[in-house]
């Protein structure tokens, strides 16, 4: 079964989506989309450095993405520039540094397009093993970290006061993001990773009644996007990574269509609570 490149692509993509969905929920809840983008862009610097030091690509990308997030924490503490500006600086300078370094390495032939936009049709059995092994580890850590991370997302002070150590969960969360970016790079590419984190989660919001449900739905919606995108790319001969993102976008747009079924009233409930009681 794994002999067929298309099947391998499907299995790899679905495995990735099952991880990016739940993780992406936190990216959306914590408004970290640009942060995820920055970490992803730093991945190209990771690629260049792993080529220089002859490291495994995934390890190099993971290390550089983790370093980029630490650099951000450090710069934020110094407080000279806004987080927004710092992200802009880190994001584009790491991408540019990576591109410049790759250009210097005339002795290696680097498929830049493959790194920027992914090449899911080229995944090997070993890649699949990495995706499922790494993905399972990331999901397991996320489950273990769920309560403190969610509490810190709702209110950092409550989490801190009630002994949940929000600083540590934030740090581990960043490492998880770096790991997912390292795993995902080959599939959707550096420029489109954030899409797979954010779009399925945003689509799931409409249908979710609780955070856990939203995480599961985001995983499923992501998997559906991968399947739809890959089939579409085969059908219309379009690049696979972008096709997956387009499929995710299509599902998101569908989720915006008002449902014909009556919705439970949730939006405006007015301030008559205290009147109820008296």
């Amino acid at each position, binding site marked *: 079964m794994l002999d067929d490149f298309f099947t391998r692509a499907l299995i790899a993509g679905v495995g990735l989506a099952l991880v990016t969905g739940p993780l992406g929920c936190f990216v*959306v*809840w*914590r*408004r970290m989309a640009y942060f995820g983008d920055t970490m992803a862009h730093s991945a190209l610097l990771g690629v260049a450095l792993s080529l220089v030091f002859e490291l495994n690509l995934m390890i190099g990308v993971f290390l550089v993405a983790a370093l980029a997030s630490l650099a951000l924490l450090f710069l934020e503490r110094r407080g000279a520039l806004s987080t927004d500006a710092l992200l802009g600086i880190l994001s584009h300078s790491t991408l540019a540094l990576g591109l410049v370094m790759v250009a210097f390495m005339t002795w290696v032939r680097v498929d830049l397009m493959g790194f920027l936009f992914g090449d899911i049709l080229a995944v090997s059995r070993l890649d699949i093993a990495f995706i499922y092994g790494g993905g399972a580890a990331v999901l397991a850590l996320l489950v273990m970290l769920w*309560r403190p991370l*969610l*509490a810190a*997302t*709702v*209110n950092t*002070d*409550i*989490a*801190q*006061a*009630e*002994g*949940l150590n929000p600083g540590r969960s934030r740090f581990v969360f960043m490492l998880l993001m770096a790991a997912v970016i390292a795993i995902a790079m080959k599939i959707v590419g550096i420029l489109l990773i954030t899409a797979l984190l954010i779009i399925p*989660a*945003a689509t799931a*919001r409409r249908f*979710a*009644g*609780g*955070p856990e*449900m*939203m995480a599961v739905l985001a995983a499923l919606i992501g998997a559906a996007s991968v399947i739809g995108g890959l089939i579409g790319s085969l059908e219309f001969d379009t690049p696979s990574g972008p096709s997956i993102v387009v499929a995710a976008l299509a599902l998101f747009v569908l989720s915006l269509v008002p449902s014909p079924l009556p919705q439970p009233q*949730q*939006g*405006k*409930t*007015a*301030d*008559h*609570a*205290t009147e*109820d*009681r*008296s």
Partner: protein
Amino acid sequence: MLEKNTAAERAPETLVEMHNAGVFRAGRWLVRGVDLAVRRGEIVTLIGPNGSGKSTTAKTAIGVVKPSEGHVHRARRLKVGYVPQKVTLDWTLPLSVERLMTLTGGAEPTAIGAALEAAGIAHLARRQVQALSGGEFQRALLARALLREPDLLVLDEPVQGVDFTGEVALYELIRNIRDRIGCGILMISHDLHIVMADTDTVICLNGHVCCRGAPQSVMGSPEYQKLFGARAAEALALYRHHHDHTHLADGRVRHADGSVTDHCHAEDGHHHDHTDGDHAGHAHKAVKGEPHAR
């Protein structure tokens, strides 16, 4: 449990203690020279104008903010229940009232039901938090904090957004919590008249501890007794004394008539009849006779 109670009766355990604590951020002291202690079964209320360091003091007490000077000592394995002044939830996070209850720790469904019942929002259990009114959300946060059965309950303006009847009910609920689980309560309030009767110590902050006193001493004053029963609102006005002087950035003091001096006058604000309200805590002594010291 029985043993614990008798022990508590002998000498109430000190849950949190602050000695001369101060917090310096972004080039200025948010609050300085705070001494306070909360014991088991005790209610300590912080009052003071906006920006007087009430929230900072409470956060320092529970370790959310690190003090820049002085010491904060908390009892070992202190279980804190915290209701912050402001909680904003992103719309993208779907969260029902029921789910909010187990945010920082697990709980039995029956206990959740009881906590929501006690806070008067049992009918809202399945409602999304974003769809609650300000008062309902405040009750939900309170229910969440008390569900933990904490040793120390820290409430930052717990009745904000709640109307008068609801306010009375919430204060009653807070007192009941204290009586039932025997926790200590550190509360920030801008309305004092209702909690007063149950508060053991009132500490008034204005960047430093202005004054402190047992409310009983306030209640003992004839003016207070005259006003308390019939016109609770007037009683509030009595204790919510006006700060008729402002501490300037350079340490000098501007008075209501516009004059500026190097230190407070004896007849300055909050020097009204608290009977034995502890004005020794008024911390300007260091400045006296030493103009421009700070």
